[in-house]
């Protein structure tokens, strides 16, 4: 009997301790010089030289046509960082079941405009490149999750593949009866492949990743560049595109849309 009581006391006192220690997953790191850090890409959406304001902002394209924007969403993927020594780092996961490295930026969700790259080796980075959209492999890789969930509104179910970028809005000059502008850019097969990779210039600046320094690369995303150079988009004739040759025109236009404004190292 005495033994049993002791046993019960033991169980009641010790069990919670065992439980708490056995369940702890993240052990404290010992203090050693950090080998990795984080880096943030901060997307700042602009039209001409104004901040993008959904629905209420009024803007003018290169042809003088006025328009408003109700939606501006896009994928950023296949990010590659270049160190000052010329070596490169690909921020991706080899795991086809992981969405790591695939970011869906939505202009009406502030958090998505900060793309946080984690586990970046400490070092000085002087360049970046990324894909606007999703590579062809992931366009045909089946039911995926997270940012690549086909139900995020960025996937065509009838002609399967990701929508790389959506711009929707209104213009009185639109040829559509409801004045709408609908540009859903996507397609990964020739001749209407709209996968575009860009390498916005750091202009001599460096992003210094340290254990206690998370650089922030401020990127101005100039939506108006989608609608001009090399080809001006005339809303009276081109107000709707869901893949195809017209989407290729717009994808060619938006290659110069991303501009590194400045880099904070703090």
């Amino acid at each position, binding site marked *: 009997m005495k033994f049993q009581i002791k046993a019960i006391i033991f169980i009641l006192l010790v069990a919670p301790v065992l439980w708490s220690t056995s369940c702890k997953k993240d052990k404290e790191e010992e203090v050693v010089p950090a080998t990795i850090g984080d880096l943030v890409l901060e997307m700042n959406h602009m039209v001409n030289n104004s901040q993008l304001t959904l629905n209420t902002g009024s803007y003018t394209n290169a042809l003088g046509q006025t328009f408003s924007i109700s939606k501006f969403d896009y994928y950023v993927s296949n990010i590659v960082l270049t160190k000052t020594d010329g070596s490169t780092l690909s921020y991706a996961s080899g795991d086809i079941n992981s969405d790591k490295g695939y970011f869906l930026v939505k202009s009406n969700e502030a958090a998505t405009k900060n793309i946080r790259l984690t586990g970046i080796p400490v070092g000085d980075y002087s360049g970046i490149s990324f894909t606007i959209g999703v590579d062809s492999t992931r366009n045909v890789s089946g039911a995926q999750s997270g940012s690549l969930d086909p139900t995020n509104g960025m996937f065509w179910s*009838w*002609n399967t593949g990701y929508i790389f970028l959506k711009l929707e809005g209104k213009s009185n000059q639109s040829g559509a009866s409801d004045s709408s502008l609908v540009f859903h850019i996507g397609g990964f097969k020739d001749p209407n492949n709209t996968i575009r990779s860009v390498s916005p210039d750091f202009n001599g600046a460096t992003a210094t990743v340290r254990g206690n320094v998370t650089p922030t690369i401020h990127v101005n995303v100039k939506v108006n560049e989608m609608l001009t150079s090399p080809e001006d988009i005339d809303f009276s004739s081109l107000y709707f595109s869901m893949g195809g040759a017209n989407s290729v025109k717009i994808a060619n236009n938006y290659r110069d849309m991303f501009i590194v404004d400045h880099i904070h190292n703090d």
Partner: protein
Amino acid sequence: MKTFLHTGLFILLLATSCKVDEPVPVVMSDGLTDADVAFNIPAGFPSPPYTFFGNTPTVEGFRLGRKLFYDQQLSRDNSISCADCHQQFAAFANLDHPLSHGVDNQFGVRNSPPLFNLPWMPGMMWDGGVTNFEVQPFAPITNPVEMDQPIPVLIAKLNASNEYKLLFKAAFGDDSITSARIFKSLVQFMGLMTSANSKYDQYLKGQTTLTTAEGNGLNIFRSKCASCHVEPLLTDHSFRSNGLNVDAILQDSGRATITQLASDLYKFKVPSLRNVSRTWPYMHDGRFNTLDEVYDHYATIDSTKLNLDTVLRNGIQLTSLERSELTAFLNTLTDFSFINDQRFKDPDY
């Protein structure tokens, strides 16, 4: 006292294991075994493009997929399930419906195709627009003229059901319900619908003999049909125009809808002829009710039709005797073990 001690020990065991595993109360009487959900490539079949990579069928995944397939909750107004347009007795086609029939009595624009040997299909749908099997269910569930069901709404419906939570947990390890899990489980179910045990298959394996008429029909088939309906899948998965008049109302561009190429206008996928006697009406818009109407069409093809397939330039001429023999052969393609397979039946009936 002893009981108290045991209870204490039990709590200790429970606590140290970290994870509190609830007992699984669902005891299924369907008798499914691992062998029932093993994906096998029938002798003579090529390697399929869809390999179930990362989605190996399990009893629990298959069972969940089957429940979803037969569940009318997949439609916006809970009125139709996948099985309404894909009926097992019709080799999972929709018998007697030229065009698929959706919520609010809306009609789709195409004939709902049979479901079998799907992992071998490089592109789903009549126009091949769906390039991976796992995202195929997304299209009919969300299509406004079919089930018209946004996936987040479907997930909310399923989350309200304890039965589904248990089924998802059994299939995927926890009860989180996601689009990927819905699609993958549906694919585990549909992907196992292999049809490879018709009389024709048994004949190829030397297990049975064909009648004289069936044998003559096979020879006719091989000389006049098999260049597109390639054995043993009885399709080459290509897109071709067989010279049908373009329906004035539907104005269906076919493969060109996907490729936007003028050279693909009015082309549709060559369908497999397996189970063909069970899958009428025929063609992408279900315009023909009988094989004889199909033969009539092939006999009278207008050779000036845009993008008409070159092999059909002169049509296909058959005597009435040849027609009856070809039909006798096509009837040997019905796979009765498939259309009666207990695994694929509605589990609630």
